[in-house]
């Protein structure tokens, strides 16, 4: 292990290590972060939900957007998989269906960054998938 010689060294080290527990930090107050929940049941996984989840994780990080990307169970829109539920702090959650990488890109650029809804919203008939 290399020695930590100055306070600046320590701060640099902290910056490097921060990402290892970032997920836990964010989970501490999920309400204040953009949350993307990807439906990852059998139907979702079969239609590529895993790639979409990775895409969101990578791209949000690259574009410096603080967000929590998590997986959730089947939302019941099997015809429209992959589906995601997007929550912007202070707003009601919105569900998007048939999310491709291109769609995901559009969602990040328009909805997450600028608050503009994009096509593909599934009428929300419920409040929140994890209401418990």
């Amino acid at each position, binding site marked *: 292990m290399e020695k930590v010689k100055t306070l600046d060294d320590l701060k640099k080290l902290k910056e490097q290590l921060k990402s*290892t527990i970032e997920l836990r930090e964010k*989970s501490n107050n*999920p309400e204040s972060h953009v949350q993307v929940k990807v439906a990852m049941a059998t139907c979702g996984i079969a239609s590529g939900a895993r790639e979409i989840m990775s895409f969101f994780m990578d791209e949000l990080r690259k574009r410096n957007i603080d967000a929590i990307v998590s997986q959730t169970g089947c939302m019941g829109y099997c015809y429209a998989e992959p589906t995601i539920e997007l929550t912007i702090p202070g707003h009601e959650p919105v569900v998007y269906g048939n999310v491709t990488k291109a769609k995901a890109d559009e969602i990040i650029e328009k909805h997450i960054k600028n608050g503009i809804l994009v096509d593909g919203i599934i009428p929300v008939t419920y409040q929140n998938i994890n209401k418990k």
Partner: protein
Amino acid sequence: MMKYKMHVLVCGGTGCKSSDSDMIAHNLRTAIDQKGLTEEVQVVMSGCFGFCEKGPIVKILPDNTFYVHVTPSDTTEIVEEHLVKGRRVERLLYKDPQRDEIISDSKHMGFYKKQVRIALRNCGFIDPESINEAIARDAYQALGKVLKEMTPQQVAEEIKKSGLRGRGGAGFPTGLKWEIASKSPGPEKYVVCNADEGDPGAFMDRSILEGDPHSVLEAMAICGYCIGASNGLIYIRAEYPLAIERLKIAINQAREYGLLGKNIFGTDFSFDIELKYGAGAFVCGEETALIHSMEGQRGEPTFKPPFPAVAGYKMKPTNVNNVETYANIPVIIMNGAEWFASYGTEKSKGTKVFALAGKINNVGLIEVPMGTKLKDVIYDIGGGIKGNKKFKAVQIGGPSGGFLTEKHLETEIDYESLTAAGSMMGSGGMIVMDDSDCMVAMAKFYLDFTVEESCGKCSPCRIGNKRLNEILEKIAQGKGTIEDLELLRNLGNVIKDTSLCMLGGSSPNPVLSTLDHFYDEYLAHVKDHKCPAGQCKALMQYIILPENCVGCTACARNCPVNAITGERKKPHVIDQAICIKCGACVEKCKFNAVVVQ
């Protein structure tokens, strides 16, 4: 660096470990590996989550799912359902006992809602065996800050301003203590951490050391800089093997990074820490006894002054603080004294960790801001009394704390209010009792402990407590008199006033406070020879109600000492001279014919 999508935190505190949490973590890792998710899911053994009643606990992030009473065989389901398919395993979720409602997200649990975690900030959050995770949570930055930006005097000032007081019992202002030690002349000084934690049932300090050892190491180094010491000693009881193990790992990791050792952060400040083991005597938690024990002498208290800050370990100036006290230091330096002082009451700042136990639904480790009402702790965080019984009393402050009653439920927890109500903060034991607990028996229970643990050096404590205990025994046997109650009170006060150390100085508190608050219950024992709670065996009688007894012989067949006689289909009788009051007959009788009087 790996980017994990999910973190699975498994409680690695002593409690959960003893119910196989190691195996749970192992099985989770295996199952995750089988599903090919090793690169996506990280399994972390963390410190204690505090909700020990429900352990072993597994928490899944980012969705904050809180699984309780997990067993090693539940792991496949957790992995296959939750981690792979994103479906929560309902049967393992926490169920709110009051509202009978499943709560999956720990943020919404009553147990956590009113807590503020400062001393426990990293417990149950980081892997205590990884200095990197601690550093990611700012560990050692406060040390860097004081070395670079503050003079020792400024450090003492900052701690003074924060209002932090000792969490080990006496509540002495920490900054002032550091200032006194820093002004004590001498090239050789010591920083001591008191991790003796002798109170029966207490595990606040153990959990901090097991869950976040670096916070204590860092604070000791800060103290070393402030008072001018380069040696730190942690006095820890040998019965804490896991805490010892984690401390050793932490000390080694800190040394490897150069955060302990010579010329820390390239300055001329050097500091290192050594462990000293105690054999688990309660009195060795008293600071002068602790110092003698570390010196290899008998663990007996000596008269103060001189205080350790002037003449302590090896007669050198020594600062002794409690584990929890230290755990608060780094955040105070990082966030500032004002931030810390914004929590709490006028004279008691910050938070206090309590080990909540007894007849309460949510047994566990909690941290609340000073000033939180007792009733909020007992009903909101503690989830109320077990089995919907009636609250009777709460005993706070360890074996020599006092009992508080229903009329104290509005009391705000701080040093002054608890003392004014007849109890004390102590180190943070909080034991709740319901109406089936006899106060005479409880007072005796604590006194048994102090009699056992008295070092015997001074007579008020050695002889006086023994006499107190004998009088209590007499009362429990139904042989007490009104005069005995007066004697208890007088003797108790004499012991308090004349003992050498605070063991004797506080040991009569349980007796005195129950006399104050439950005098009627004592009277019932001495005048009516009755124990209203039905606990004192000598004062109870098992009798069979002839009108209910059908003569089924179930009781007689199960009595271990053949105390019950009677013909078949005729009412039975218990011979009181033979009965040992085991209660077996009550359980066996299907006709409610056997009753306790």
